[in-house]
């Protein structure tokens, strides 16, 4: 009959945890801080002059393992500089099937697509999880951007880099 003494040990262990601080938080009210590299949804960026960075090269469309990005190429005059250059006339990212692998960010030649740090994107319809170009540019303004972009990722992985990159870190 050693069940009693053994059980006392289990009871003590569980009682000790009653007095520890709970790990969970009241979710909608309290939110966990996200590290700088946290990746969730997407955003398309503008450059300093306010011109769209995306050149519609379809590199992300080709590399996406889930095949959820579709880009339409358009050549037009830039509203900012007035020069003729390539743009994406349409950019759709269907995040229903997205696996958040960051490969599209990695391959972007102009650092146009980045990921954002807000994970909570509940929706009532599948259609509202489809990120259209307007929503992607909207995200640039309203969502905290993740740290990584193509240049920074390439810098980290480059074979000629010498040791630990001293990159900006978590908030």
């Amino acid at each position: 009959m050693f069940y009693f003494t053994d059980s006392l040990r289990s009871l003590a262990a569980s009682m000790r945890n009653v007095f520890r601080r709970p790990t969970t938080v009241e979710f909608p009210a309290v939110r966990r801080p996200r590290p700088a590299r946290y990746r969730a949804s997407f955003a398309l960026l503008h450059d300093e002059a306010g011109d769209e960075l995306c050149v519609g090269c379809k590199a992300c469309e080709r590399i996406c393992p889930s095949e959820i990005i579709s880009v339409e190429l358009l050549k037009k005059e830039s509203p900012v500089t007035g020069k003729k250059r390539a743009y994406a006339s349409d950019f759709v990212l269907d995040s229903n099937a997205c696996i958040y692998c960051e490969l599209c960010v990695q391959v972007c030649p102009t650092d146009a697509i980045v990921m954002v740090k807000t994970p909570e994107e509940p929706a009532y319809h599948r259609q509202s999880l489809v990120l259209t170009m307007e929503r992607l540019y909207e995200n640039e303004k309203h969502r905290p951007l993740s740290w990584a972009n193509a240049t920074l990722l390439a810098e980290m992985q480059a074979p000629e880099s010498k040791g630990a990159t001293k990159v900006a870190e978590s908030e």
Partner: protein
Amino acid sequence: MNPWLRGLLYALLITNVFLTITAWSIWFERKFSGRMQSRLGPTFYGPWGLLQPVVDGIKLIQKESLIPASADKLLFVVAPPLTVVLALGTAAVIPFSSDIIAADLDIGVLYLLALGSLTIIPVWMSGWSSNNKYAMLGAMRAVAQGVSYEIPLVLASLVPVVLAGSMSLSDIVRFQIKNGWFAFWPPGPGFFAFLFFLPASLAEANRIPFDIPEAESELIAGVSTEYTGMGFGLLYLAEYLHTLVISAVASVLFFGGWDGPFAPGLHWMVLKTLGLFAGIFWVRWSLVRFRSDQLMSICWRYLVPGGLILVMSAGLWVHFTRGGG
């Protein structure tokens, strides 16, 4: 007072008080187990989630009650309410204070044990009528376990009966008020009888670590597998009711009922019952469960012989202290 009126009054009182306490004890358990598990527990409805039982009840009532096509419909429907009735019926003889008692039977302990062991029947009914293999296995285990643990339960409750020389629960309490609680005096039989009583009654109520009939990691939900909505709710409620009644009985038999160091009365009884109830929750959320054959071997190899020895030693105590009796 008219005995019929009195009976009705007490029936209403006991039903309402017990069901209310049970409902909020589920809230307490969820909060307590939540803190134990580093969680917050219910927080959403009312302050500290206090309205959670209400919401749960509404949810369960709203749900569609499904009856499996191959089930025995009558038994399937009758079983859950019957478990609740039997669990509540046990409460009739519990003395809450010197004058709050529904029926002060001379054979209170016997009534208690008899009604308690009847709970196996609705459990078996629900398991059999579900026509589900898991429910069937669970019911079989419940019957085997209930029948076996009846014996140590009877033996353990015989100890206070022998010591007090009465089968009436209020007499047992009065004896304890005079001579000290059985859990502490006489040293030995009473305390050990309590240690036997608690697991045996937990086994009867199918609580962890003896909840093998509904071991959800093996049998999904045992007897309640096929139940939905309020049918499930009643089975669930009956389990808690049973546990509550057990706590009350244990505090009457071993901890002196309404007796207390000062101002004896109802509050002591409530305090002791809820304390034991919380203790049972603590045990539940801390232990893993036995296998069914191990459970049987514990019963027949340790608890039954041990119970016999306890009864004998209680008898000897009575013989030598009160001489021949």
